[in-house]
């Protein structure tokens, strides 16, 4: 155990909790070198720290810690009904990180996890092993599903590892979803046409209010521009749409701003979807008392909370109509409730 010297620790990841068994993993060593002013705390199992009772998600959000661990079980999980598998016969999401650097008020991770800290499973090589048997068929993997992997790419290099792995796997498609403005690590990679970089955008007012610690709209747009110019497939997601008093102007304006900066012909799809959440996650979110998003009087059906049907229709009709002025129908995707 390395005692923390009395120099100032970094605000982010002031503590690295490291499972003893991954202490010598190259990724652990790399991170420990990068965070050489952080306190290193050796632990037996990540759950000792991540699953402690009586943590405060809200308090921890301002001082997140990083837990480096080995994943014993499955890295791959079947895609859920709340997400879009883009008609690939197999759709999994890979869970190599738990927790997110960012802090969005509407994020279901707050309801899912007892901690605002991040667990990074360093043995990504085992995820590739687990995936190989499926790759005789077209398979889509969302690599950034319960987190934003690109946000901490400079630390983890996991996106690069996925891209390197995907280069030689002809049936493997990747979706890398992000709010990050960090395109730099991908610059040195050759664009792979089976990879989609999916940027989530929100109006700046919504970012300021609900998407704490995330890059601004302008920064995200710059990253998108760099990615399309470098030849990557880019999808833009305006999802989740948060319904507010100013919805009628905020979100249509966002589509205008987007296509003012980005040539519509250079993006593969625009995905639109209003806020929705499973009721157990919403219940957990309410307990935190952090945001009005949790307390909106949603309609609940089949264990899923959504805006009332009239509002949901207004959201989609307004935004689809706006999007159609830039894109043809086939390139606009929407999330809609199953009736």
């Amino acid at each position: 155990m390395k005692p923390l010297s009395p120099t100032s620790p970094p605000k982010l990841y002031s503590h690295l909790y490291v499972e003893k068994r991954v202490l010598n993993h190259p990724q652990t060593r790399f991170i420990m070198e990068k965070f050489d002013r952080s306190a290193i705390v050796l632990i037996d199992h990540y759950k000792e720290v991540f699953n402690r009772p009586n943590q405060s998600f809200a308090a921890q959000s301002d001082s997140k810690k990083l837990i480096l661990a080995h994943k014993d079980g499955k890295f791959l999980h079947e895609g859920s009904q709340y997400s879009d598998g883009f008609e690939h016969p197999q759709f999994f999401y890979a869970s190599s990180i738990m927790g997110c650097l960012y802090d969005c008020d509407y994020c279901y991770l707050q309801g899912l996890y007892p901690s605002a800290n991040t667990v990074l499973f360093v043995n990504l090589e085992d995820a590739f092993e687990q995936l190989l048997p499926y790759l005789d068929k077209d398979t889509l993997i969302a690599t950034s599903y319960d987190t934003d992997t690109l946000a901490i790419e400079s630390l983890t290099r996991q996106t690069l590892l996925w891209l390197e792995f995907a280069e030689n796997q002809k049936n493997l498609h990747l979706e890398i979803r992000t709010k990050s403005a960090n395109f730099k690590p991908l610059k040195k990679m050759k664009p792979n046409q089976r990879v989609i970089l999916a940027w989530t955008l929100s109006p700046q007012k919504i970012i300021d209010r609900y998407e704490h610690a995330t890059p601004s709209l302008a920064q995200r747009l710059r990253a998108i521009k760099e990615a399309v110019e470098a030849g990557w497939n880019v999808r833009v997601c305006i999802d989740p749409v948060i319904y507010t008093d100013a919805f009628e102007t905020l979100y249509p304006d966002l589509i205008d701003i987007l296509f003012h900066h980005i040539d519509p012909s250079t993006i593969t799809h625009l995905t639109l979807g209003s806020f929705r959440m499973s009721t157990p996650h919403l219940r957990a979110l309410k307990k935190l008392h952090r945001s009005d998003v949790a307390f909106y009087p949603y309609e609940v059906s089949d264990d899923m909370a959504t805006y009332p049907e009239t509002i949901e229709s207004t959201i989609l009709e307004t935004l689809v109509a706006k999007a159609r002025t830039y894109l043809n129908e086939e390139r606009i995707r929407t999330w809609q409730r199953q009736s």
Partner: protein
Amino acid sequence: MIYLTCALDAEARPLIEHYRLKRDYTLPYTFYKGDGILLLVTGIGRSNAMLALSALMGYRIPTKDDLLINIGICGAPDTYRLGEALLIHQIMDTDRSYYPDILYPHPLRETGLMCVDTPVSSPCLSPVDMESGGIFQAASRFLKLHQMAFIKIVSDHFEPHKVTKEGAIHLVKSHIHTLESLIASLQKVSSDPSLFTPEEMEKIGEWKTHFTVSQGVKLEEALFYFRLKIPKRPLPFPTDPIPTSKRERSTLLETFIAHLTA
């Protein structure tokens, strides 16, 4: 409220003097009270500490704005300076470890601490004490993990026979400023803020008595929505008396909720 705990009377003495604490005989422990401070001397050893802490937590159940600080001396390897104050980020107890959350900047050296059963006179890899495990276990039932801190001042390099009462008093006294600045840092950690004032809470409680439990939950959620959306707006409770007829009451509630969530 700040809960201070020490194992020994000698460790408590400088705190009693500094904070001008008064002895209180409510608990069967050496217990002191002062302005916003409670101080408990737990006695030596894990189980004594756990029992004493449980009594203290039962005496006054902590709120989310309270803090608990365990301060005392410890034995440590000679890589730690005698008299150095350490902030503990890991307590290694007999069969498991505990982790107080350190969510604030501070100038202290951080380290793990082993909680042992008897004084240690042979070299050990980390600092040792005899109470931290018991204190953490009892306190973590009542406090969030960032509301607790453990400060240990190095009294010896595994030579417990050299530790004197005067020495312990001196060590704690020399770190009163350390304690005060740690308290200031801990108090800055944003906890879950109270969304409603006590008067508003009272009004909400009073309103809820007129409705069913599920109506009360809906009302409360609508009030949370209203408050979180624009924090400074006063709650717009209707001024008309609450109707006696069940149907009219339900209509009033629905209208009010619609107004709150509009």
